[in-house]
């Protein structure tokens, strides 16, 4: 079914997008950067967990996550206001305060979504206002194909979705609050889980938490 196109304005620039598409994809397709960690184009229910993609939309009081808001004809979106920047900078600092910053030794160095966000939005990687909340959880290197480092994980949930889609559906969120982690069913080491080895989780991981060996 050919989808109708709608026109909207993002940061003063006129953008054309498929009707029903989310603002985030419309912006990225048009070359306008909106930081995002948890959004997946094909996912039915947007995760809306990382809170980096918040934008202002004319006519709305609240900030809206661009990854979950479908475009509407004539919509006026702003991604770079002071208000937007304040909140997403806080979200970014919070994530980095809980991230083992070790870019030098990280496989993902150079292709990490956190680095990209920092450089595009001119944020420092190391939070200035917040002390770090270190996690020193064991790295799961039981699997022959890939490893999982929970201390770098941003809990975007992409791997959970990927594992549901093409893998064995073995990955899930576990525990609550600051202790939340991505875990196999029953918390067994990856190699003992029902993992089929598709490694799609590694492909979708935006940071250096799931990496090939």
């Amino acid at each position, binding site marked *: 079914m050919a989808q109708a196109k709608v026109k909207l304005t993002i940061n003063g620039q006129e953008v054309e997008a498929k009707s029903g598409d989310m603002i985030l994809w419309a912006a990225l397709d048009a070359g306008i950067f909106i930081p995002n960690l948890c959004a997946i184009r094909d996912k039915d*229910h947007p995760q*809306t967990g990382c*809170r980096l993609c918040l934008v202002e939309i004319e006519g709305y009081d609240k*900030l809206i996550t661009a990854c979950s808001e479908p475009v509407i004809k004539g919509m006026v979106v702003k991604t770079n206001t002071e208000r937007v920047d304040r909140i997403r900078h806080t979200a970014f600092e*919070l994530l980095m305060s809980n991230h083992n910053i070790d870019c030098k030794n990280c496989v993902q160095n150079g292709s990490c979504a956190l680095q990209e966000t920092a450089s595009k939005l001119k944020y420092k990687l190391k939070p200035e206002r*917040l002390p770090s*909340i270190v996690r020193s959880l064991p790295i799961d290197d039981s699997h022959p194909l890939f490893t999982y480092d929970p201390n770098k994980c941003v*809990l975007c*949930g992409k791997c959970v979705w990927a594992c549901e889609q093409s893998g064995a559906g073995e990955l899930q969120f576990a525990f609550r609050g600051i202790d939340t982690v991505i875990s196999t069913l029953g918390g067994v080491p990856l190699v003992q889980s029902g993992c089929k080895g598709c490694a799609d989780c590694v492909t979708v991981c935006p940071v250096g938490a799931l990496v090939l060996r």
Partner: protein
Amino acid sequence: MNFSKIRSEAVSDWERFKSKERAHILVGTSTCGRAAGALEVLDALTKKIEQRGIDAEIAQVGCMGHCYAEPLVIVAKPGLPAIAYGYVTPGMASVIVDNCLLKDDPCLEFALGALEDNELIPTIYDMPRFEYENRLILRNCGDIDPQNINHYIANGGYATLESIFKMTQKGLIDCIKKSGLRGRGGAGFSTGEKWEITKNAPGKATYVICNADEGDPGAFMDRAILEGDPHAVIEGMIIAAYGVGASQGYIYVRAEYPLAVQTIQHAIDQAENLGVLGHNILGSKFNFEIEVFRGSGAFVCGEETALIASIEGRRGMPYNRPPYPATRGLFGMPTVVNNVKTFATAPLIVDRGANWYNSIGTESSKGTAVFALAGKVVNTGLVEVPMGTALRSVVNDVGGGVPHGKKFKAVQIGGPSGGCLPESALDLPVDFDSLTEAGAIFGSGGMVVLDEDNCMVEAARYFLDFTQKESCGKCTMCRLGSKHMLNMLEDIVHGNGKIEYLDLLTDLAADIEEGSLCGLGKTAPNPVLTTLRYFHDEYEAHIIEKRCPALSCKDLIAYYILPDKCERSCDACVGICTAEAIFSGKKRIKVVDQDKCVKCDTCVAACPPEYSAIIRVSPASAVPETEKRPEKAK
């Protein structure tokens, strides 16, 4: 069976039960009563009555609201007024049987009051709280046997089913809209509007869900209703289902409420047997079934999208709204989610009319508010007052004020995500909008009273610790933001706070409120924001002077024995101190060895009140110089 037949049978059952010819006894055996020993009392009563061969009917009823005086027993004996007895023990129960039932001594020494006007004793309705109370949502709780559907029907229950089937769906929804009913689950959304959106949303199946997750620590009104008047909830759900055109309903109850689960399930079975629930309700074409779903008892599962995920078998994590459940809810279909109290109110509105309901409460908040009063207040328990009643009346007149002559400090409203309001806010009317304006929320209706001994920084820390742990972990703001805030509060109560924390707390709180995914994160900073707003001086005292004004934060206080108050020959404090931190000094005046003291507070309680020689001082460094423990005693 048609409804008039059902009703006339119910009425004769009820009349037999209430008959003045025969003694009948009510025992409050909800969870709150059981915790106080109601089952033992029930057992004692039953045995004694049997032993004495007395003809009397005993019924178990729900929470009567006076939880402070539990176990509660009501005895109605021919020739005597019905009398409520409080703090009943199995021993007292035996005495009541022997003296009141067997002889004619009403045992006034145990009585709280009579339930009807009489010559003997004042009625409980003469208590100041009844000037304010208006039990609509709790109308039957404590009066009827929740296991007996006839009691409910005889008191007007299920009568609305006859009238709704004569109404159009739109007519019914308009009636709810016109009544001004707002949801009692926290946010206060218009119930009529929610039903209308659901009815008009495209989708095959439509569901009705009753939210009985009630995860707030200290809140138990939904449990009390399910345990004390389950049919009111079922009837409300049927009304909603008819309005939106649903044929399947769920009651989401936390598994930690086993009695509520059991009571509501029993009620559902009874209602189905009588034909007021299930297929072709009362011979109409309308079908509606209800399933009880036991939740795992996570606070966040009370959030409607997380609740739906949980019923669908997924992890209880909130989803972005919109789409709201009303348009896309359970299994992707339009779904009404309402609180227990919202459903329990609906039958009254249909029965008595929108205008009647609309006349109770304030301009923007109609009807009544149910609170679970707890903390430093004389009459803990469930109270129901019209919206707009002054907070002061709830705390002082209904609640009986702060006990032990202590000074009121604050009232925490709306559960862990609510706010702490000070004395100056006590003249506020309780309604959705006033509370929100003051920085609290109506929330679930938890109301905890704090007195001068409560540290407000510690109170904020306590509540944030709860929400932080209950965060589902999905959203950055809530998972990490509230953790950073909590860490700062912990530093402050331990005496390691920095003055720049105050600005950072305020900034982070604002960002978390604005940037969080769901209501849990959005409201989590409330206890911190309200205490920062109303009790800023306490934060500063902790940080700058290392002083806890309430003398409660352990790291900031020290114990000191006033030499001229110490009785000297009394060794109570020395004997009780497990840390061996108190010794007899010169002239046998007792002295605290600060190095050994673990600040357990037991000595304060042990020191006889006529001396009251042991005091807490803050900052800890303010303890006067005392003599050192002699070497050999060390």
